[in-house]
């Protein structure tokens, strides 16, 4: 018998609303749908809209304003248009990898969301090593993108594929180092354990609770920018250099999936940062009066943090020019890695000196 509470707390939460006779697998499926539909459509829609409007605002333009009030249905129009467009396919023997690439990459990116709790007990997969698991899934998602770019039969796609590998190399080491720093501090290897030592108030966040975790935050933020290929590290799909890179041969619905993927990557990185550093869904006040609705409020609080981070990311995106490929690697290896190693050692020193207490505990 499957113990829902152990393998998937969110499904257990959902099952409390439903009849007890239902098969756990069915409950799992339902909770997957409930979890992913808002994530895949609503959050991405909001992110896309935010991106376009932020861009317009930074560039002193108006941005889309013809469809619906303030152009809020722009995403709907784009989606519908792309799905009703011809899907031109590359005539290539290995083309199945190319064609399936965006969808597979999206699938792996979505899987990375499974173990991040958006509220107390609201996470789909209960894993012991979920921090590393997320890392592996992120690399896998990029690898599928690599395959799809490599088999696109386009020179710029191939160039982009090599850049994806470089970006994975540039992202992995700093990202893992900052994760190790967190594991060292929190003593746990999953999101649940990391969130357990954080509180709702800002001074109880991981970001401020130890002097070195702020360094980890910076390192992780930059490495996630490299992973997404977001400006200033948008070497993967820059329009001027390699004409869209991995997305150059996609049209129609596959182009839509690529755009979806970009937004999902942004959301995932903001999820990670919120869950690890910004206290996740912990609310500053006691929510016991709300009963079972407390988690909904927590998840809303979580998404608020996520969208603030998304907004900041877009702000950075539209302010900075692009770096070169070798500069990305230099930045990763010569700035991020030394900084995070130094942070790592400082953490051990701090933990040894103060018996593992954070700033908040000491005060």
């Amino acid at each position, binding site marked *: 018998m499957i113990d829902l509470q152990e393998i998937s707390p969110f499904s257990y939460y959902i099952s409390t609303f439903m009849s007890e006779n239902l098969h756990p697998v069915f409950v799992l499926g339902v909770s997957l749908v409930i979890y992913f539909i808002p994530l895949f459509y609503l959050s991405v829609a909001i992110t896309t809209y935010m991106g376009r409007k932020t861009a317009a605002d930074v*560039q002193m333009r108006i941005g889309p304003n013809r469809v619906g009030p303030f152009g809020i249905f722009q995403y709907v129009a784009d989606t519908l248009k792309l799905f009703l467009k011809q899907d031109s396919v590359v005539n290539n023997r290995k083309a199945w990898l190319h064609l399936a690439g965006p969808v597979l990459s999206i699938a792996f990116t979505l899987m990375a969301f499974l173990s991040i709790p958006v509220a107390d007990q609201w996470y789909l997969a209960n894993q012991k090593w979920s921090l590393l698991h997320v890392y592996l899934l992120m690399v896998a998602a990029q690898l599928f993108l690599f395959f799809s770019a490599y088999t696109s039969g386009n020179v710029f796609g191939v160039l982009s594929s090599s850049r994806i590998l470089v970006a994975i190399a540039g992202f992995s080491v700093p990202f893992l180092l900052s994760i190790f720093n967190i594991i060292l501090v929190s003593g746990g290897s999953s999101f649940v354990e990391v969130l357990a030592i954080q509180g709702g108030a800002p001074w109880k966040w991981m970001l401020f609770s130890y002097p070195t975790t702020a360094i980890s935050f910076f390192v992780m933020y930059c490495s996630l920018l490299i992973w997404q290929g977001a400006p200033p590290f948008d070497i993967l799909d820059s329009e001027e250099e390699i004409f869209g890179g991995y997305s150059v041969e996609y049209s129609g619905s596959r182009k839509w999936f690529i755009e979806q993927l970009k937004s999902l990557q942004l959301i995932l990185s903001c999820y990670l940062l919120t869950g690890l550093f910004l206290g996740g869904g912990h609310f500053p006040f006691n929510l016991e009066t709300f009963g079972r609705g407390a988690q909904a409020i927590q998840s809303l609080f979580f998404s608020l943090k996520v969208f603030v981070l998304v907004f900041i990311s877009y702000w950075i995106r*539209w302010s900075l020019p692009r770096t070169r490929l070798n500069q990305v690697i230099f930045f990763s290896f010569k700035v991020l890695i030394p900084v995070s190693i130094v942070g790592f050692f400082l953490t051990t020193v701090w933990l040894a000196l103060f018996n593992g207490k954070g700033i908040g505990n000491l005060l």
Partner: protein
Amino acid sequence: MSNQNMETEETYYSNYGPQGGLASGPLKLKMTLSGERVVAAEPDVGFLHRGIEKTCEKLQWVALPSLIEKVDYLSSIHGTLALSLAVEKLMKIEISPRAQAIRLIVSELNRIASHIYFLTTMAKACGAQTASQFFLRDREKINNLFEMLTGARLMYNYVCVGGVMSDITEGFIEKTHDTIKYLKPKLKEYDDLLFNNHIFTNRLKKTGILKTSDCISHYITGPNARASGFFYDVRALSPYCGYEKYKEFLERSIKPVTQSDSLDRLQQRVLEIRQSLEILSLEIDRVPAGTYKEKLSKDGKVPKGEAYSVVESSRGLFGVYVCSSGGNVAERIKLRTPSLSLLKVVPDILKGNEVSDVPGVIASLDISVSEIDR
């Protein structure tokens, strides 16, 4: 890298353009790449060859300015100015001081407009979308001025044989003052956007080095050459339209040569915007009274003979050779365009750079393809 390694290296071939390239106009680069490095790059031109020189022999003299404008559309005033100077040499007319002053003003305005557009493409090439929008916004101000004076935003058809097409419109001088006042603080903003931005400067440094010896042997002129330490400015060397007054100013304000790379060329352009604004702010108050256009005979004929005159366009030395057989139609018109001399140097400049640098280097050379192809 040693020669032996070069031979065993696996290379592949890629096209760059003609659609989507960053030069203004369709420029194609045939690139041989090794990984991300450019092993060889060969420009392919002719995608905008319209046969303007032949078309000049088909149309009447009156129609020529509107045709020569299209040779270098970003600095169209300079093309028409060179043509007018050449034809005036043939017709032996003296231009009134007022017309000369107006010509100087519009030519400097056009230089600013062209250089700001250069900054736009440069920012786009480096991925700074927002900065490029800022530059476009400022170019609109110059466009407004031109619209006020000539009624057009790009193809002005303003300078003509015997002077200029119309007199300075009411309020133009005040508006120009306003624009200068607006643009001067903006130049500081440009510095913040471009040269105080480490990402921007680091990616442009040491890319696309244009040697001084190449400039001299290929006779590359204009801002590109000036950034490489080859000071050649027609405005100072053989002044026209009253540039005599600013000869010393132009010779004095030379940027010291450092690397002759893309960043230097960018800095040179910003410096020239500053120069042009200085000249403009002096000249705009000095427009003398008089006629703006000399009376010409109505048959539209140009006396027999040959003439050759040059101006300093936004890209360098722009020359027009005119040959007339005494009729309504030109016998032969030949255009000497500054971008053409860059063509043979581009492979050397691009060689050894990375793919990421190619848009930046091409944009920093400010190649106008329409000028090469004609």
